[in-house]
């Protein structure tokens, strides 16, 4: 778990120890019984009511490949590519990260820091999109209001490429 948190903090660029106001995101990558398995590419972002991107939290892809070759398949995260990815230079500071194994992965966001700093009060959705080589693609949305009046635990579930997606809002 320590290692997962550490990875997430790299992806989210947030120190894992702090427990102030913010968002705790957890994303489950399911273990799949398939002949040829590749870790999925995953994008996590906060979406405005009009589906534009308020903030990118993470994009997990083959960052270690030489000369940014891992970016060739980023377009398969087609919703994220349309809304945000195609306008970016890679790697994206504090957003790009390595692909993750099956399991539950955490991304913590502190209020006032990084992606949350510019978030105005309003309706948003946490969006997680996954695309896997020789596999499928799936997108899961968790709508939420910001800022929250009280602690909230929101969740949604994918059916094939994603497992549980949880959003804990700490006011």
């Amino acid at each position: 778990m320590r290692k997962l948190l550490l990875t997430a903090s790299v992806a989210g660029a947030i120190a894992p120890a702090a427990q102030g106001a913010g968002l705790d995101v957890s994303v489950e990558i399911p273990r799949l019984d398939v002949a040829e398995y590749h870790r999925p590419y995953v994008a996590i972002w906060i979406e405005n009511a009009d589906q534009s991107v308020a903030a990118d939290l993470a994009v997990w892809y083959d960052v270690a490949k030489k000369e940014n070759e891992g970016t060739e398949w980023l377009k398969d995260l087609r919703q994220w590519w349309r809304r945000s990815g195609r306008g970016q230079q890679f790697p994206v500071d504090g957003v790009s990260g390595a692909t993750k194994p099956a399991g539950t992965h955490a991304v913590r966001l502190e209020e006032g820091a990084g992606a949350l700093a510019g978030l105005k009060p309003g309706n948003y959705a946490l969006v997680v999109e996954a695309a896997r080589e020789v596999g499928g693609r799936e997108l899961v949305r968790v709508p939420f209001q910001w800022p929250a009046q009280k602690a909230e635990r929101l969740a949604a579930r994918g059916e094939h490429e994603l497992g549980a997606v949880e959003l804990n809002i700490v006011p």
Partner: protein
Amino acid sequence: MTRHAARLASRFTPRFASRFASRFAASLALALPLAAQAHDLWLLPSSTVLSGQDAWITVDAAVSNDKFYFNHAPLRLDGLAIAAPDGSAAQAENIGNGKLRNTFDLQLRQSGTYRVAVVNDGVFARWKDADGKPRRYFGKPEGLAQAVPAKAQDLQISQSLGRIETFVTLGKPSAPAPVGKGLELVPVTHPNDLYAGEAATFEFRIDGQPAAGLEVNVVPGGARYRDKVDEIPLTTGKDGRVQVTWPQPGLYWIEASTEDDKTTVARASKRRLGYSGTVEVLAQ
């Protein structure tokens, strides 16, 4: 009868017949080798939306009524014109000529949108020779003088300008510069930013001016696996624009044709203009 149903019905009236005839002639002039009947022209790109760097695409070029199946003839690539995002000309590589389709590769060295087109600019002449036998010539205007005898009877010359194209984007889409010549589609909605269930607007222009009242036909690919063509008939407004809401993801063929008398070739009585575009609509 709904407006849509009325328009569909109208496609089987003489108006449809005349339109068919004009397409027939246009495809004859554009699509050598000669076809015995009307056939449609199209390009089929391997990808339309790409990420990464220095990506490659391959493009098939064919003449066939069934979009996008190669089952009739290859589309000649003599008029291949590829505009890179910065407007410079990009070069096709590995050009191959097949029985049912021609192909070429293209490396996307720049980020942005490429306009990949085959532009056919030529003349079509018909006459009767000294024995009264019908003769004809298709090709470049420069060849007319040699092909047509001085004593040609009933000589009819028409000019033909056709554009068969598609759009491909690496990274962030850029706005393709309008061509300003012939019949063209000027994107209002970006042609690599199309999604099922959403509406897209395109402007048709003739020599850079909005083409009002132009009939535009949008045909989804993949007809082999359904019973109906499911074409979407549209007509441009005064501003030359049409709007289409994509019923499902997939490839679509966009066709329009017309004619006018703005010829630039001596003795040509009219100018035929054609447009055939291929776009890909993505799933949400």
